[in-house]
């Protein structure tokens, strides 16, 4: 889906985050660069531990101690969030860039009403009175399609269903109409029917406000349905990135390809065999010196350059597409199965 090149609103450049480990620092986010444009949905795909969540926590200065952002810049409308004084960064968070957490049950404070929690966000950034904050909260709840928001605003999180909690979280995040909304696995904990409702809601909100949307997920179907562009992460690194259509059509990284092949799909013939990715997800403390995916790779497996040299994210033959593989050209010459 080609769109006129929109204005970049969030630009992450060379972001690197480490945690101290027993044998030196462990790199959790490894030189990650990503761009999000206004009105665009960027999907970040990866398994648990691939660093996708930590990338955005790093960008927002939310890395838990003792982790540290050691390099990179995060430009939001031109200002580098990593170099802002703390109070300015705080003012940006929630107002210009907001995040929706994965688990709606734990992400809501159990002892405050939904209205209080949305109001708290409003009042942290504006000079709204208590009553007008409440009014705004009700409006926001209405926007995320909470039925009967006048009554529900005084409910506590445990009185909400899972889908409604996720909506409430989204309401908190969009209350101040941020330029960028980061949705971190917003539907993992939800049933498939509710998942569809929430994702549709996010898509609608994006369309209405023109904000940039980052969708962190491990579900390729979700990516296919909602994303404009896609970045695949593995072991803290971006392995492949490009427009969603191109990455699905012509993947240029063995990991991406393996992901497609290892999961049963509803649209593939029922008899199709699965090709598992052998081995275990990477332990960030014990990464090989070369390509992080090399130990599990069906493609490069055992080749000397894969073992010793770390490939860079390089543009491929596909427009607006880059992959982090020494041998992407060979992959390009293979025919994509199915």
């Amino acid at each position, binding site marked *: 889906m080609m769109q006129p090149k929109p204005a970049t609103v969030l630009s992450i450049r060379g972001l690197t985050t480490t945690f101290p480990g027993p044998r030196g620092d462990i790199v959790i986010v490894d030189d990650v660069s990503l761009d999000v444009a206004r009105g665009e949905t960027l999907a970040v795909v990866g398994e648990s531990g691939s660093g996708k969540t930590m990338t955005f926590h790093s960008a927002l200065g939310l890395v838990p101690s003792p982790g540290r952002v050691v390099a990179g810049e995060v430009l939001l409308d031109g200002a580098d969030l990593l170099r802002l004084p703390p109070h300015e960064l705080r003012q940006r968070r929630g107002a210009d860039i907001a995040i929706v957490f994965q688990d709606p049950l734990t992400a809501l404070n159990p002892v405050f009403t939904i209205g209080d929690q949305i109001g708290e966000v409003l009042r942290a950034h504006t000079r709204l009175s208590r009553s007008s904050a409440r009014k705004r909260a009700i409006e926001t709840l209405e926007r995320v399609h909470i039925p009967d928001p006048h009554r529900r605003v005084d409910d506590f999180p445990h009185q909400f269903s899972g889908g409604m909690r996720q909506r409430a979280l989204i309401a908190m995040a969009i209350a101040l109409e941020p330029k960028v909304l980061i949705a971190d696995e917003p539907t993992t904990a939800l049933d498939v029917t509710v998942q569809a409702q929430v994702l549709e809601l996010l898509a609608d909100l994006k369309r209405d406000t023109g904000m940039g949307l980052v969708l962190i997920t491990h579900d390729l179907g979700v990516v296919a349905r909602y994303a404009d562009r896609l970045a695949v992460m593995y072991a803290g690194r971006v392995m492949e990135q490009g427009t969603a259509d191109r990455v699905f059509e012509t993947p240029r990284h063995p990991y991406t390809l393996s992901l497609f092949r290892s999961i049963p799909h509803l649209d593939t013939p029922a008899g199709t065999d699965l090709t598992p990715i052998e081995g*275990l997800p990477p332990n960030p403390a014990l990464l090989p010196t070369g390509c992080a995916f090399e130990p599990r790779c069906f493609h490069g497996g055992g080749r000397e350059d894969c073992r010793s040299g770390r490939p860079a994210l390089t543009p491929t033959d596909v427009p607006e597409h880059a992959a982090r593989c020494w041998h992407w050209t060979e992959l390009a010459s293979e025919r994509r199965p199915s």
Partner: protein
Amino acid sequence: MTGNEQPPAPDEPLLSVANVSKIFSGGRSLLGRQRSAVRAVDGVSLELRAGETLGLVGETGSGKSTLGRLVLRLVEPTSGRITFAGEDLTAKSMAEVRRLRGSIQMVFQDPYGSLDPRMSVGALIAEPMIVHGAPRADIPRRVSEIMGLVGLDARLAHRYPHQFSGGQRQRIGIARAMALSPKLLVLDEPVSALDVSIQAQILNLLRDIQQRTGMAYLFIAHDLAVVRHVSNRVAVMYLGRIVETGPRDKLYGAPRHPYTISLLSAVPLASPALERTRSRIPVYGEISSGTAVPSGCRFHPRCFRARLVAGAGKVPTVASGDGIIPAVCAQQDPKLEGPTSEHLSACHFGPEHDGRIATLQPAGERA
């Protein structure tokens, strides 16, 4: 397993669940107040033959996990009969049931929680054998045999679960379930807690084991694609009821029940091209709780077909929640029936009413 032919069906089903219900009564509080009861499973019947895989899908709260536990009598049925290999499980004493559990085993969803963290892997796998009185001398040999079977290095038997990854732990769980060579394996979401890259390993392992041993699987999952991948037959559950059941290809290829249709439409496909052309069928709201089961057809508050039929205006209608639905939907509980004895669905109306589906407003608009 998906590529295989249907196993020859013996006359007698291995497992037969007949009209089984489970109501979790809330019990009484200290003040003697009756807490509300939860109808987790409500008059469910199904059969499973040796070597067959029955997939059981449904959302959270549909009662599919409870049904799995009822089969092992880990949960006492409130009513109904469960017959396993000709023996009436529901009539047996607890001690006999425990003995029979050698033949019916279960693999649990959470590979992190379902293994006692204080026991070594060897001890965990040996435990069922000890409990069922296997000769002590045979146990170590059998443990390494089973570990090999599930793809674990037998030299790691002295290790503890936390030293293994999620996928390996699920292998341990499977090994433990297989230790007594059961005839039926109840698999409760065996891969949903695993990393995507690992799921295929476990699914393939399960397929291999079934091919080798001829075990029957009751495969419980919420992931429609996974269930499609592993099952011969599929049953869809909603609020304690089976709303549709049929052979895999028929159910996925031509779903009859509006809930099945909605479910399938809600699962996004991993292809942007296909996604762009797909119509989206709204499901209204969220699943009700088992304490307040809707009257009539329990799916009616969320049903698009009911709204379509009502909109066509040929049947008496009533207002329900935020929509107008046929009166029959709100008043009468549909029976599970169908054109063939294989493919059954519990709906008052047929799929022929779904033609004007595009006229419905999108799901996201109303919650």
